[in-house]
């Protein structure tokens, strides 16, 4: 007895691919937590537990062969895995290794070149990436490439001036930009009610004049569909869409945060709506997949994460002599001519 499932044009192969990315995100992050607790990851660690669904689903709506670019925040590792980021690169970044994509200069998932990689790492000044993504899509239009940009932003970051300036500029310029506003209820310890008097953050679209939508971020397929609609609109020249995805972070702000400020029942309520569990159940109910599929995916994911870990652990730390290099072009540090 199967329950019919609207897959929005996704094939079984696509759906299993999404499941692969969901499990890869979760397993890789679990490995990173273990490494963190073994003092091998340096600095902070920020999990996306509970938010893997919207990260993967939204990013899956882009067409990287067309040059589309995704910009994650710290809780969107799944999105850059979809874009093609390598788990070993991510682990090397977290372990501050000398052969990480940023050669030890930047941390966690702050890496990626929009043109070469299809994704670009953020900077810590939240909101700044919206104008930058606007510029990336502007360049795509000038270069007559039909590329779409997708920027993630948090409920807290949507309070920044850079967010407003970037959204306003992108909308009035009618740029092909999809903005995923992840409302997970908290910005570190600040609940959204203290962040903004606006009840539905998607309504901020009215300030810019762009389209908007609200979607259940823990419903993988619904999120994918909303993102796909927005991507198609952007590619058709219809401009910016602000999509508010409602979701929740199960593990607090970071590994060093015990989120004592979050009511326990909220955590329990959202834990019962785990996006991966819900997604797999929907596939099984629809007869599109079964446990052996997921086991096989998990085994593959586990093996990839192990291999990536081994590679990263073997990598050297950066050399101190390199600290002064690579500020400007000319010393060839980054391999430029």
């Amino acid at each position, binding site marked *: 007895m199967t329950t019919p499932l609207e897959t929005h044009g996704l094939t079984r192969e696509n759906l299993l691919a999404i499941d692969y990315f969901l499990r890869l995100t979760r397993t890789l992050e679990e490995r990173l937590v273990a490494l*963190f*607790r*073994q*003092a091998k990851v340096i600095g*902070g660690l920020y999990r996306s537990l509970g938010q893997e669904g919207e990260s993967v689903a939204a990013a899956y709506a882009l067409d990287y062969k067309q040059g589309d670019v995704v910009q994650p925040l710290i809780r969107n590792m799944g999105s850059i895995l979809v874009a093609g980021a390598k788990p070993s690169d991510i682990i090397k970044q977290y372990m501050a290794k000398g052969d990480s994509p940023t050669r030890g200069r930047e941390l966690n998932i702050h890496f990626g070149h929009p043109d070469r990689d299809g994704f670009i790492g953020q900077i810590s000044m939240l909101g700044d990436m919206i104008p930058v993504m606007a510029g990336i899509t502007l360049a795509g239009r000038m270069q007559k490439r039909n590329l779409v940009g997708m920027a993630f932003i948090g409920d807290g970051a949507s309070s920044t001036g850079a967010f407003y300036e970037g959204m306003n500029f992108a909308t009035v310029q009618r740029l092909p930009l999809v903005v995923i506003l992840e409302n997970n209820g908290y910005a570190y310890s600040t609940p959204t009610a203290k962040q903004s008097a606006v009840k539905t953050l998607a309504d901020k679209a009215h300030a810019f004049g762009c389209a908007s939508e609200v979607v259940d971020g823990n419903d993988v397929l619904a999120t994918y569909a909303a993102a796909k609609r927005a991507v198609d609109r952007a590619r058709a020249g219809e401009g910016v869409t602000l999509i508010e995805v409602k979701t929740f972070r199960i593990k607090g702000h*970071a*590994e*060093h*945060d015990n989120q004592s400020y979050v009511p326990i029942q909220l955590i329990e309520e959202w834990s019962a709506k785990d996006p991966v569990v819900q997604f797999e159940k929907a596939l099984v109910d629809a007869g599109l997949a079964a446990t052996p599929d997921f086991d096989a995916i998990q085994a593959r994911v586990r093996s990839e994460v192990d291999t990536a870990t081994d590679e990263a652990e073997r990598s050297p730390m950066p050399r101190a002599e390199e600290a002064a290099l690579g500020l400007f072009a000319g010393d060839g540090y980054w391999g430029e001519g």
Partner: protein
Amino acid sequence: MPIDVVMPQMGESIAEGTVVKWLKKPGDKVERDEPLLEISTDKVDAEIPAPASGTLTEIIAQEGQTVGVNTVVARIAGEGEAAGASAPAQPAAAPAQPAPPATAPAPASAPSATAPPASAPPAQAQAPAPPPKPAAPAPQAPPAPKPAEQPSNATTPQPSEENITSLDERRRTKSSPLVRKIAQENNVDISRLQGSGVSGRVTKNDILDYLQQPEAAAAPSPALASGNEGGHPAPAESAVAAPRPPAMTFAPGEGDRIEPLSMMRKKIAQHMVLSKQTSAHVTTVFEVDFTNIDKLRRRHKDAYAERGAKLTFLPFVIQAVVQGLREFPVINASMDESSVTYHRDLNIGIAVALEWGLIVPVVKNADEKNILGLSKSINDLGERARTKKLSPDDVQGGTFTITNPGIYGGLFGTPIINQPQVAILGVGGVKKRPVVVETKEGDVIAIRSMCILALTFDHRLIDGAVADQFMARIRSLIEAGQFTL
């Protein structure tokens, strides 16, 4: 190779963690990532997974123990290693060790070997004998705030009384980095030069001018040593870079006493040699009858004493010399490789022997003074020389020098020229001797006060004939005794 399990850093500012509970015991097999122990930190509690698969061989940090981040808390023997091969259990690291352990702070009691004195000492002058202070150094007042000045710029260091002197002295003796560099390269003592900059600072132009024309800015050092009075004068100017002859060496014998040379002595050594290397020294000697001026001296010395002047032979000699220099200006000159400078002024240096050395104060414009004036000047300069009250102006600008090697009874001397002058007159002892006097009636023997004058002159510029004519003129002036007192 055993694998360490370490206390992780659960957050940027976390420095330590406490072992709450071990989930495995030594000898247990563990899988990679399997929870191994529970810890507690300031921010968060966590389960710590095993870093590798293998056997837990030893627990180093016990339950309840707090250790610093990165401290080894347990060891795992990797798969394939003998489970029993473990190092003897080490005591856990000291509790609450800050990580990384800082180097121990220096004990508070250990005094710094180079602790500066509590108050800034006044600047040390470079010459061993303190140079005479310049007259009335301008006090270092802070600049008055002007309307156009920076509001935040009004703070200049407020000098204390002590600092006023030391800032001026610092400027005079240490000048600027550039001038120090030039001085060091050319072996010049800055403190012996006269400067045209603030506080009498020697500027770049001053020292460069000096090096080209040593007399222009130089003040001959007042502190030229010679242990004995009446030693040969020739306080040559401070060393212009002259070629140095190779030093002679000798081995000290048994019982010899070795003393380091004082700065003063070193300078004299340099200057004496320098003068000899610069000028072509020739000495011409004249015997002069001082009887007539001796009579004048005896007749007037009491009256002079009442007027505060001790009357000696010297003023008469100076007047004669001054007249002679007027007539033979080439002897009142200086020279370099390509030109001769005839000095307009007649500034006669008078060598004064001191306990600690020799000094040559200068009677400026000696041609403008009469005997009384000269007498007073000589007395004054001599007195101030002995009491160290000469100013740099007193000892510079001389164009000709007179010295007195006869003071201890010697016949005459062969003095060394006082650079950059070209001649120096040594006055020997005045002695009564029988001499032949030619009269109309024939030759007779008379007792006369005789003095031998020796002129050392620089034969580069002055030929013997000129020198002798000059000396003959002086002799005739002195012997004629036509001096107005």
